[in-house]
Each structure stands twice: as C-alpha cells, then as structure tokens.
C-alpha cells in the first residue's frame, strides 16, 4: 500500500500530516516506511529524526565527446531536445545540467565519438526513525535543476509489506507526477484559502487523470465555503480536518510530532486511516506486525 501526500500549494501542512500519520499507524502496530520525495526541500527528517543514515549518491549519465574521433558534423546538437549540446566549428560544448540522460547523442553519433559518464546530482539516505519507522529521503544538490532522477532513486528503496507514506513535492508539475505515479491513494493536504483551493484543484485533476483514488485533508480548518462546495460538487471525500491552533504551530516550530505533544489529535489521524482504508479497499491496520 503506497499513500502519497500532495498539496499543490506549498506550506499547507503536507509534511506535518504525513509524519504524524506515519507515527500514528506505526504506533498502532503497523510496519511503516516514510519516503520523502520532496527532494528540493526534504523536511520529514526534522520531525521523524532518523538515525544511522546510510548515504548513497544519485548519479545520472551524461555524454562525453572523444575529440579525436569527432568530425564536428553537428548531428548530436541538432537532435538533442534539451539544448544540452552546442556544436561549434572545432568544439562540442555539453551543458550537463540540461541533459536528461536519454543517450540519443551516443546512439546516433556516426563516428562513435560519444560515450557516457556518471555525474552526481544528489543523494539518498536511509535509516530508522522514531517508533521504528523505516525512513528514506532523497536530497537534490543545490544548483541542480532536475529533481526527477533523485525521486526515482528514492523509490528504489520501497520495502515489501510496509505501508508506504510518500511525502510529495509541492506544485503541479512533473516532480509531483513522478512521485504519485505508482501510488495506490493520494491524500491532498489543503488549507481553507483561495490560494490553497486554486492549487488544490489543479493538483487533484492530475491525480484523477491518472486514475488515482483521492481524498482531502483540511489543515488549519476554518470557514471557507468555496472549498466545501468544490469538494461536494466533485464528490471528493473529506478525510480529516485539523483545527487552526497556535499550540500546533508552536509545536511544529519546535520540530515536534504533534501527536507526541497533543495525543488528543490521535482521533483525527485514526479517522484518516479509516477513511483511506474504506476508499482504497486496502487494510492499513493490524494486517501484519
């Protein structure tokens, strides 16, 4: 069972809900794996505090030219869709950050003058966090533009038989699509504001187009009719709400798990678990230990 937590708008509480949900179901006897795919700004570790992290580089393949063989015909640059190769009269310039590692240039070079080499763009870290939660995150190196390969590398760590909680990046573009592509259920965490709703609609449409079952969590709940209307009109289930409370914001600012400081909210997360189970037809609790 893979559950992705996405949002559209950033800062709605996606990570807060995901880490507390992971903590809640781990404490009710389930084997849980937390997977942070927000590789540009991974924050789950600040709350789950994993230890003994095993770090591995994420590498992508980039082309290298053998100038002794190159005849400067210009074919590689002409076919590259990512503007990663510029051919000059006596030079081939390769912009490695632009390269998507498709290897087309290597395959079409008539002189066999191109080969591939590895380049590091980020890393993954795996370890064990509080309540025995298995933890993995991807980290994109600063100044690297492409999150995709790091997200794909994180997903290689999926553990059989664990409930997988996947923290998705904000936004509505390709990193989010890559993150939720193999999820069984997508939880959208939103806030009752025009910004939250505007971005939620776009993000939900992506998941629905991919045929994913979805539901919504309203964080910092408050009176905002357009959100309720949107959910009703589109038959999108409301899975859980969390109130707007200064004590929650402060607990967050101390890097705490809310359920640790305020166990009374366990009910909310229990409801979330039950709703996801009902809607996905999959068991979350008590199936294994």
């Amino acid at each position, binding site marked *: 069972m893979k559950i992705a937590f996405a*949002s*559209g*708008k*950033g*800062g*709605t509480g996606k*990570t807060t809900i995901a880490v507390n949900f992971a903590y809640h179901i781990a404490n009710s006897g389930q084997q849980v794996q937390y997977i942070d795919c927000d590789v*540009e*700004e991974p*924050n789950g570790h*600040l*709350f789950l505090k994993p230890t003994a992290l095993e770090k591995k580089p994420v590498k992508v393949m980039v082309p290298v030219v053998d100038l002794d063989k190159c005849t400067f015909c210009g074919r590689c640059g002409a*076919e590259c*869709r*990512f503007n990663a190769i510029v051919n000059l009269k006596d030079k081939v310039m390769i912009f490695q950050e632009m390269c*998507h*590692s*498709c*290897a*087309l240039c290597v*395959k*079409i070079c008539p002189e066999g003058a191109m080969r591939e080499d590895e380049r590091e763009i980020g890393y993954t870290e795996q370890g064990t966090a509080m309540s025995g939660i298995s933890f993995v995150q991807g980290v*994109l190196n*600063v*100044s*690297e*533009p*492409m*999150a995709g390969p790091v997200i794909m590398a994180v997903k290689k760590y999926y553990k059989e038989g664990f409930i997988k909680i996947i923290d998705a*990046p*904000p*936004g*509505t*573009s*390709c*990193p*989010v*699509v890559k993150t939720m*592509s193999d999820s069984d259920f997508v939880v959208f965490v939103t*806030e009752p*504001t*025009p*910004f939250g709703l*505007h*971005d939620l609609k*776009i*993000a939900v*449409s*992506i998941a629905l*187009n*991919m045929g994913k079952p979805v539901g919504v969590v309203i964080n910092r709940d*408050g009176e*905002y009719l357009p959100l309720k209307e949107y959910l009703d009109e589109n038959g999108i289930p409301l899975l859980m709400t969390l109130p707007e409370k*200064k004590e929650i*914001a*402060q607990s*967050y*600012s*101390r*890097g705490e798990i809310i359920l640790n400081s305020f166990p009374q909210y366990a009910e909310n997360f229990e409801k979330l678990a039950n709703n996801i189970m009902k809607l996905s037809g999959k068991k979350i609790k008590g199936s294994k230990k």
Partner: protein
Amino acid sequence: MEKIKEIVIVSGKGGTGKTSFAASLALLFKGKVMVDCDVDAANLHLILNPEKLIRQSPFPGGKKADIYSERCTKCGVCVEACRFEAISSDFVVDTVLCEGCGACYVLCPANAVNFTEHTGGHWYVTDTGNNERFVYAEMLPGEDNSGKLVAAVRNEARIEAESTGSSLIAIDGPPGIGCPVISSVTGTKLVIVVTEPTPSGMHDLERVIALSAHFRIKTAVVVNKSDISLSWLNAIKEYCSANNHYFLGEIPYELSITEAQRAGKAIIDYKPECEASKAIKGIFERLQLMLENI
C-alpha cells in the same frame, strides 16, 4: 534610460507567505512590472486581480512520442532506446513517463513514431490599473518544462518594462530550489527570501541561499510569522549576520492575512494599521534604500 533591475522573492519552503508579501509590495512599488513565476501554482493574480488582458500566448510544452500501430513492425528498437521506460512491450507510449527526448522517433526504422509539440501552458500580460503591468503564466496540470515557461514570462516582463519605461521588475518566484527556481533567479540583482522561524524554514532557507550564492546574487531575508518562535527567529538573524546576508525585517503572525486573502486583497490594503502591515511598510522602505545601491 535607467537600466532595468530585476528582483525576485523566493522562500525555499512553501507557504511561508511569499505571495502575500509580494502582493503588498506590488501596491507599494510604483512604476514597476510585477511578475508571477510560480507557474505551476500561480496565485498572485488572485490578489492583483488584473483589470485588463493586454495579450496572451500559448506556450509549447515540449514534444511527446506516439506510436502509429499500423506502421509499427514491433521490432523493439524503441523499447530498447527509451531510457525512461515509457514504451510498453506492446508498443504504447506512457505520456507521463515520456520525457520527449525523441530517441524512439529518430531511431525507429519504420518511421512509426509521431513526435509533435503540444500546448504546455499559457502566459498573460495584463494591466492592473495606472498602466502598471502584471505578467503571469499558468502551466497545464502535470506538465514539465516549467523552467522554460518561467524564462518566457520573464522575457515578456522585460519587453513590458521597456515599453512602459519601468525600471523595476519584481518577481514572485516558486518554492523549492529546482528548475523553475533557478530559471527565476538567474540574472536578477537581488533575491529576497521570505522564511518562517521553524526548523523547516531554517533548513530550506539555507538551501535556497546556497543557490543564490552559487549564482553570486545578493540576498536579503524576511522572517514572516516571526513571533511563533523567538529562538528560531534569533537563529535566523544570527545566520544572516554570520554570512553577510542582509536582514530586511520581520513580520509578526497575523490572522487577518488569511482574511485578506479570502477577500482577494493584500494585507496592507485590507488592514493598513495592523502590526504586520506596518512591518511590511518598514521592510519596503529598507528595500528601496537597498535597491538604490545595487
């Protein structure tokens, strides 16, 4: 003519109040071009509410492959060539996984691959009144190439700045540190980071500042919701002074910012006398002084 200065507001972490802050700056700066570069979750137009659309254009979203089954000889060259595992064993392209590299199109011996451009989004040049321009874009759900759309939006903004004689372009950037952020900050004179006093805010601030340092752009910091944690606020201030980043100011937690957003207004317009509005005006004054010297 005075050279046009571009400044960009980013945050690293999402939801720190970047756009709410940008909306207030949009009212305070006169004679600027305002830009929303958060193309996959554009929100600033919900507050600036442009009066008039001046022009718009679709934006090409890059090419995607499609296999004509009647021409396909099932030789398997495309499946082997595709690095993104986007072509199934029965020769159907998964458009989500296809990155548009064209390897299958170029290498197919039967010419059975169609490789065409599609619309990835739209950009809009608008007037928000007083002949002030606001440029923004909306990417279609799930598209890639957000960096290129950002570049296109910034290009339109520069055209508008020249034609309206504006000397300042103020950009509301996307969260994160990836492709669209890099495209939003390159070539600007100043990066303003709006953060919050939390572990995540601090963590992401350091990463986004490392990015602006990489491009050698001057950086200034604003802390929003500054009173939720005094210790993190101090940690951010110390970090700024130790690393020579200008601390522009702090904005206290203000519940009416949400109300203002629901009313489609900037906080300095909705509740000009509240502490947050006063703080923003102070930040604006320091920012203006700073801009004279860069």
